[in-house]
């Protein structure tokens, strides 16, 4: 039976993890490579590296650590941040990324998903979308959630999937950082609209939030989170043990 995926997301700037934390046995808490290996050993099913570098020097540092990670971590690796062209896909795929996540790049350039999917296959293209309710309507936000594009989110997601996005990461701005649980209403609306895997993001604060997510919305394929893993508020091994206890299909390591 296909298992529910648990995905930690690492923000990387100039080749270093932005939110470093102290995990036992980790020599360098800001090393994406070490943190990636640590998460992989704890049972993470996939890693997301999000490049928040602005400079081209920083980009080079990012691809260097990507190569280094791909040499040492043998689980799927998704890369996002600063993906605006098919050449950007090429740059990170060559360094060992398996999937590439596009967000603002797809909003700016509507043919990006189509072009990338044609060249690398749908399975390689992940749509990441920041969604917020505005007057009761789900709207797509760009630039890290700062700018309302005015686009209705479900229509946008459908359009991207039709163009070849093979997975969708739905990040709810409304629940992000609140730690009160995932945005079940928003996720359900997306699951009902598309037939590709849906990854829930934004709002997880504790183990039970993931259990509630998978039990309430069996169509959701994965849960993604960042700071709760990095700050040790939720340990992936504990989370997976609880998922097993609750009879949620889970990969054990």
């Amino acid at each position, binding site marked *: *039976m*296909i*298992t529910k*995926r648990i995905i930690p997301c690492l923000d990387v700037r100039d080749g270093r993890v932005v939110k470093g934390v102290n995990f036992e046995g980790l020599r360098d808490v800001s090393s994406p490579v070490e943190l990636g290996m640590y998460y*992989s050993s704890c049972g993470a*099913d996939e890693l997301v590296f999000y490049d928040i570098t602005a400079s081209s020097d920083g980009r080079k540092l990012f691809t260097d650590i990507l*190569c280094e990670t*791909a*040499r*040492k971590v*043998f*689980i*799927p690796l998704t890369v996002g941040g600063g993906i605006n062209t098919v050449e950007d896909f090429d740059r990170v*795929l*060559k*360094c*060992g990324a*398996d999937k590439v996540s596009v967000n603002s790049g797809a909003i700016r350039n509507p043919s990006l998903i189509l072009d990338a999917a044609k060249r690398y*296959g*749908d*399975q390689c293209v992940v749509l990441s979308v920041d969604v917020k309710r505005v007057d009761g309507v789900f709207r797509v936000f760009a630039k890290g959630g700062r700018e309302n594009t005015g686009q209705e989110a479900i229509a946008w997601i459908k359009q991207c999937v039709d163009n070849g996005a*093979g*997975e969708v990461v739905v990040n709810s701005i409304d629940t992000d950082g609140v730690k009160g649980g995932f945005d079940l209403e928003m996720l359900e609306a997306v699951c009902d609209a598309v*037939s*590709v*895997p849906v990854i829930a993001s934004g709002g997880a604060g504790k183990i039970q939030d993931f259990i509630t997510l998978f039990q309430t919305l069996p169509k959701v*394929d*994965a849960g993604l989170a960042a700071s709760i893993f990095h700050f040790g508020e939720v340990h992936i091994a504990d989370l997976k043990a609880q998922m097993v206890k609750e009879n949620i299909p889970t*990969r*054990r*390591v």
Partner: protein
Amino acid sequence: MVAIIDYGVGNLFSLQSSFAAIGAEGTVTADKEVLEKADCILLPGVGAFADAAEKLRSAGLDQVLKALAAKGKPLMGICLGMQLLFERSYEYGCHEGLGLLKGAVRPIADVIPADYKIPHIGWNGLIMKQDNPLMKYVQPGDCVYFVHSYYAADCDEAVIATAEYGAELTAAVASGNVLGCQFHPEKSGEVGLKILKAFVEMGEKK
């Protein structure tokens, strides 16, 4: 030495790295002499069947692989590489494969319920069907990482493992020295590395 066949499809970086991680030498090559010297041969592949089969043929690698397989050299296909070992595929038409394994590649949509997502993507548990040295370090239920929309059909005799996705889909096959994994061992964590280790050991015995 494991020869990883380079015929212009997909990224071989992770595969090469995973052999390094188990202390084996993985050489990315399309050179016939290197392939002949190799202890075992890995046929990777992502993308479309017809395109990949054509690339193998135009490089003359189809004949080389058939000859080396006939000599008993362990040959393993991964994902699309596994599908290419079969007689034919019904991905966008009907296309001829290498014919080293009996069977055909068909859309998973033919056998799975309509509400299952396609592709079959993610970690799924292995259901063992036959004992095979390839799986000697692996336990039933161990999860491996799949990404595919087509599966190997009509090949019951060769199936050594399946995965449940609304139907039992072929996960691994073997017929003598010709082997295949539908999943990606190089992306399947420790379990995947164990499978690659077992494959390398098959070559060492020769």
